[in-house]
C-alpha cells in the first residue's frame, strides 16, 4: 500500500523540471501552466467539442444491498426479508420487465430505463470473497483478486493509453481512490472544489507564494515519500490553477418534480456527480472520473438509511445525465457503479450483514438497456449470499471497452461483456 510508484508524477514536461532543476523553476512552471490554461480556453472558445469517451465510476463504499436496489419479484425474497422486504406494489416498475422492480427511491432512474439508457448487471463479485471490506476492496481496485498489486485497474488503463502525464486525465472526487494507482500516470483528487485553490496570507502575493512553493519540488532529493512529497507539490500547484478556472461548483439541473419519490436527499453521489458533470463540461481532457460515496454498510437501521442512500444515487444519476445532455456531452459518457460486495440475503432484523454478489448499474446512451445476470435466491452460496456469478472484471471490461480498451492489457485477458454495450 505504500508503493511510491503511484505517485511517480515526473513525466509531464513542466513537472520534469522537478527532476532537472536547470530551468528557472518558478518562471518555467508559471509559463507552462499559463499555456495549459490557454490551450483549454482556446478549445472551448473555438467551440471544439471533445469526442474522447469518458468513464464515470460511482463507488458505493460499504457494500450496497443489491437485493433491495433492484428487487426480485418473488416470494423467496420476502421469506428472506420479512421486515426489510419492499412490497411488490411499492417497487418502481421497469417497462417490459416483470422479474424485477427498483427500490422506490430509484424512481428517477425509470425514465432512463424507458429511454434504454440503463442496464443492470447482477451477481457481480469474485468467487473467493472473504466478506472483509478491505480484502474485497483490494480485489476490486486492483482487479487482481488473491494477488497483491501496486496498480489499480484504472491506473493501468491510464498507463496504457497516456501520451503525457496530465493529472487531470483522471480525477477522483470525494478523496482519492486506489483504482487510479498507476505506475507512471498521476491523477487528481478533489474533496472540496470551492477550496481547491491556493490562498495567500494578507499582503503576500499569491502568485509569488505559489511560485515559491513549487520550487520545493526541484531538485528531487532522496527517494521514497520525501521525493513523492516534492512531486505532489508540483502536481497540486498545476492542477489547482487549471481547476480554479473550471467553475466546478455549478449546481446540477433539478430533475422534473415527478421523477423523485418523496423527499430527495442530496449526498455524496449527487455532490460528486455535480463536480463530475462540470469537469466534463470544462473540457480539461478528463477521461476517467471516480466518485467516492460511503455509508452503504447497512448492518442496522437499513430501511431508513438505504432509502436516503438510494435517493441520492438515483437522483444524482438522473441529474448528472441531464447535466451532461445539456452541455452536449451525453454521448461521450458512460457511468458504472461499483461496491465491494452485496449484502447477506437474509436480513438480521434491522439490517443486513456482509454478502457476496452485488448489483450494478451501467448508465448512458451507450448501453442497450438490459438486465444481465440472475440472483438465484433458491440457490444461495454456503454463507447464504447471492452467488458471485459474474466476475468483477466483466463489469470492468464493459467500462474499458467504452473507453476503447485495451481490455486485455489492463485485465490480463478478455472478459465477457454480456452484450451490455450497444
Amino acid at each position, binding site marked *: 500500500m505504500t508503493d*511510491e510508484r503511484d505517485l511517480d508524477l515526473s513525466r509531464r514536461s513542466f513537472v520534469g523540471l522537478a527532476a532537472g532543476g536547470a530551468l528557472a523553476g518558478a518562471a518555467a512552471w508559471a509559463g507552462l501552466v499559463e499555456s495549459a490554461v490557454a490551450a483549454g480556453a482556446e478549445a472551448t472558445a473555438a467551440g471544439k467539442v471533445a469526442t474522447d469517451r469518458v468513464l464515470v465510476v460511482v463507488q458505493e463504499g460499504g457494500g450496497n444491498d443489491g437485493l433491495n436496489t433492484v428487487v426480485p419479484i418473488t416470494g423467496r425474497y420476502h421469506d428472506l426479508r420479512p421486515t426489510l422486504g419492499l412490497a411488490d406494489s411499492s417497487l418502481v416498475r421497469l417497462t417490459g420487465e416483470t422479474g424485477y422492480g427498483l427500490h422506490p427511491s430509484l424512481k428517477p432512474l425509470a425514465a432512463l430505463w424507458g429511454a434504454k439508457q440503463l442496464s443492470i448487471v447482477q451477481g457481480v463479485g469474485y468467487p473467493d470473497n472473504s466478506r472483509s471490506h478491505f480484502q474485497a476492496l483490494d480485489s476490486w481496485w486492483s482487479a487482481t483478486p488473491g494477488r497483491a498489486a501496486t496498480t489499480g485497474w484504472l491506473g493501468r488503463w491510464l498507463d496504457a493509453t497516456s501520451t503525457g502525464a496530465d493529472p487531470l486525465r483522471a480525477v477522483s472526487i470525494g478523496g482519492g481512490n486506489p483504482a487510479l494507482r498507476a505506475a507512471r500516470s498521476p491523477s487528481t483528487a478533489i474533496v472540496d472544489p470551492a477550496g481547491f485553490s491556493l490562498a495567500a496570507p494578507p*499582503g503576500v502575493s499569491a502568485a509569488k507564494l505559489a511560485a515559491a512553493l513549487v*520550487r520545493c519540488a526541484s531538485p528531487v532529493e532522496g527517494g521514497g515519500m*520525501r521525493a513523492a512529497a516534492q512531486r*505532489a507539490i508540483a502536481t497540486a500547484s498545476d492542477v489547482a490553477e487549471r481547476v480554479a478556472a473550471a467553475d466546478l461548483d455549478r449546481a446540477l439541473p433539478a430533475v422534473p418534480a415527478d421523477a423523485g419519490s418523496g423527499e430527495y436527499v442530496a449526498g455524496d453521489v449527487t455532490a460528486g456527480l455535480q463536480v463530475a458533470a462540470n469537469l466534463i463540461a470544462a473540457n480539461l481532457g478528463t477521461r476517467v472520473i471516480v466518485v467516492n460515496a460511503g455509508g452503504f454498510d447497512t448492518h442496522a437501521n437499513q430501511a431508513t438509511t438505504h432509502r436516503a442512500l438510494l435517493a441520492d444515487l438515483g437522483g444524482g444519476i438522473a441529474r448528472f445525465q441531464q447535466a451532461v445532455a445539456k452541455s452536449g456531452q451525453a454521448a461521450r459518457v458512460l457511468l458504472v457503479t461499483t461496491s465491494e460486495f452485496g449484502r447477506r440475503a437474509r436480513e438480521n432484523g434491522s*439490517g443486513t450483514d456482509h454478502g457476496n454478489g452485488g448489483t450494478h448499474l451501467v448508465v448512458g446512451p451507450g448501453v442497450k438497456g438490459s438486465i444481465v445476470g440472475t440472483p438465484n435466491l433458491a440457490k444461495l452460496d454456503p454463507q447464504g449470499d447471492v452467488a458471485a456469478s459474474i466476475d468483477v472484471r466483466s463489469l470492468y471490461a464493459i467500462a474499458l471497452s467504452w473507453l476503447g480498451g485495451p481490455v486485455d492489457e489492463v485485465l490480463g485477458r478478455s472478459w465477457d461483456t454480456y452484450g451490455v454495450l450497444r
Partner: protein
Amino acid sequence: MTTSDRSAIAWLHRRVGFGLAPGELDRLEELGVDAVVDRLVDPDRHGAAPRRDPWQGLRFSQVPTQGTNYRAESVAAIGAWMDHLSSTGRPTESWLTWFWHNHFPTAVAKVRLAGLMVTQLRLFQRAGSGSFAALLRGVTVDPAMLVWLDGRENTKATPNENYGREVMELFALGVGHYTEADVKACAAALSGWKLAPGATTASRFVPAQHDARPQRLLGRTVTDVDSVVATLVAQPACPVHIAGAFQDAILGTADAGLTADLARRFRASNLSVRTLLRATIEAGLARLDGPPSARPDVVVAPAPWLAAARRATGGTVSRQDGARHLLAAGQIPMNPPNVGGWPGGPAWLSTSTTVARANLAAAIAATTKDSSPVLRAAASGDDARLADLLCRPEGFGRATRNALADARRAGGRPGVAALAVALASPDLTVA
C-alpha cells in the same frame, strides 16, 4: 556517523508526538535521549506534567434528542482536542490516544453524539498505554463503539455480525486468522450490550437479549465479552497484528523479522502496550544510524501535522477555516471515513491534501506573532535555525532553501510567506 541526541529527540517528537515548541528541544537535549524516552513512555514515573482532560469544561448532550446540535458539539470537541494535541505536556500519551483512534476508528457522523466520542477518546487517553486486553475489553463495550459497529443491535433474536467481524479482522487479529463460523460465534457471544438509558456515556448488559449458548470461537468455548476478549488476545496472531500496526505507524516499515521480535516482547509482557511502544521506539532509534532504506520517511497525516505546526509557531487557524481545510485535506478528527481508519501514507500526498496543507500553512503563518522565534528566523533567512525550530535540526533540503529565498520576496509581513512555504514544504510533510 552517529545520530546526535538532538536529532534523535526531534525524531521522537515527530514520530510519537506532535512536534516541539521553541526552546523545548534545548531543554530536552540536556536530559539526554534515554531520559526523554523514559518520560515519553512512562510520563508519571519520570516527572512529566500531570494528565489534562482536553474536554474539561465542555458539556455534551447525553441523549440524542430532537434539536440536539451534534455538529456544534462535535466542532467544539474536535477543536478542544486539536488544541490539546498542539500543547500537550504528555506527547506520547496524546499520540497513543490518536493512534488508538485510528486503530479503533469510530466516526461521529454515525455516532451522532460528540459526548460518546469524547468518552471513547478518554478511554484511549486513560488506558492506551496499559494492557491491550483491558483496552480491547473496554472498547468492545464502549458506547460509541456499540453505536458505530451496531453492537447495540446485536441480540439473541437478531445477531448482527458487524463488530464480531471487525474486532477480529481489524482490531485484534488480521484477516485470514478466523473463519466465517468464528464471526457468527463471536457476534453471538457479544450479544445483549446496549447503551444505558438516559445516560449514554455508559453501556449496560441486558441478559434477556444475550445469546447465552456456549459458542465455539477459534477452538475455545466462549459465552460472553470476557471469554471472547480472553480468546482473542490469546491468539498468536494478536500480538503480531498489534506489533505490525505500531511498526507501520512509528517506523513506516513492515519488517517481518522486527514484527516477530516486537510481538514476542509484547506477548512476554502480557500485552503491555507500554512495553511494545518502548520496544518499537528503541528499534527506531537504533535504525537512525542505519542505512536510509531501514528508516524510510513517513508522511505526516494532516491533523498531526497541523498540531505540530501550531505548537512550533504559536499560530492558529479559526475553527471554521480549520474544519474546512481539514475536510479538504481528508482528515477530520473524530470522523474517519470508515472502520479501516484513514488510508495514510501516499494518500496524504494527493492533490487535495497538498492544496489543503498549503492553505493551512498560510493561515498558520499569517497568525504567527512577530515575537515568535520561528517567524524571526523565517524573516532573517536563518534557514538552519528555522528548520531546528520546526523540529528538523538536520536542516532543510536544497530545494526548500531555494523556495524560502523566493518566498522572502513575496511581500507581506516579514517572514510570513517563508514560514508558510516552510510549513508546507516536503521537509515538514514527512517525518
